[in-house]
């Protein structure tokens, strides 16, 4: 015969023994497996449709831009972390950042036309050939090839031609790009010689230039 007290003690002892031996574990395991059953497996999760993403509202977008302005750099670790947050308004903007950048457009700023085409008259061609011939004579070092009387004729003709053009309002740079191949000293020598040839002083040239537009 056992007393009720003793039976109570026995039950309590049995309970303690159960806990100690892990006999109660199945209960906890049961709860765990139930939880696991509620959670889809990895395979299931991959086939399961994700809830449709809701586009961030304009207010959310504005909040995002505010955050950006506050110093969260786009496409940085910080912004990516924010994107991971559930329902983050950053997602849409981050997506835009991740999207391939549109190809930059070509904008035509200016069009610079080709230099005016040269009109080659037969006389111009002859003059060019003559110029080339003279340059060749200078290169050869044989300055006697073009005798003074021929030079005088050429310089006189060119003076008249250039002045006639200028009078007609057709002013152009007398040397053009060829100024790069003529030494400043040569120009001064020729100018001085021209003035002397017509008995002019430099001050007279200066006065004439100040009166006219020459």
């Amino acid at each position, binding site marked *: 015969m056992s007393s009720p007290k003793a039976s109570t003690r026995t039950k309590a002892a049995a309970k303690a023994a159960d806990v100690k031996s892990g006999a109660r574990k199945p209960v906890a395991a049961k709860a765990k497996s139930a939880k696991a059953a509620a959670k889809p497996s990895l395979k299931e999760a991959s086939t399961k449709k994700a809830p449709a993403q809701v586009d961030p509202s304009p207010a959310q977008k504005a909040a995002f831009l505010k955050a950006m302005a506050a110093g969260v750099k786009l496409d940085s670790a910080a912004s990516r972390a924010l994107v991971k947050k559930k329902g983050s308004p950053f997602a849409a903007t981050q997506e835009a950042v991740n999207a391939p950048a549109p*190809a*930059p*457009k*070509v*904008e*035509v*700023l*200016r*069009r*610079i*036309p*080709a*230099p005016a085409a040269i009109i080659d008259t037969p006389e111009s061609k002859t003059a060019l050939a003559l110029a080339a011939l003279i*340059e060749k004579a*200078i*290169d050869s*070092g044989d300055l006697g090839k073009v005798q003074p009387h021929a030079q005088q004729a050429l310089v006189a003709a060119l003076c008249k031609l250039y002045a006639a053009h200028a009078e007609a309002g057709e002013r152009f740079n007398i040397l053009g*790009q*060829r100024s*790069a*191949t*003529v*030494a400043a000293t040569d120009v001064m020598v020729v100018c001085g010689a021209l003035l002397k040839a017509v008995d002019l002083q430099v001050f007279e040239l200066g006065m004439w230039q100040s009166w006219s537009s020459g």
Partner: protein
Amino acid sequence: MAEQFVGKASEFKDGERQIIRIGEDEIGVFRHQGEFYAYSNFCLHQGGPACEGLTIARVIEPLREDKTSMGLHFSETDMNFVCPWHGYEYDMKTGAHIADPRVKLRKYDIVRKGDEVYVVA
């Protein structure tokens, strides 16, 4: 780097230039003796519009055998373009500064597909 359409070769006359902007780059596209060249429009001197100045044949000074000068002449093969700000002169074919070829403008590749001209930028 992507090919950017610049224009049609048939509409680009020889000797003509175009200053274009692609993204943040400003580029001068030249057509010289049928070939296309493209360089950065930022002069290496002080950032002037390097591709918008004069185009001029290179000035050369041939020497005689005794090393005396034959005077200054225009080259018949080489063409330069000159920055309009202070006169830095660059070679049309390479973009190199003519006095110091180590100094070079950024060159952009040109791709031609039929009549279409593209700059790789």
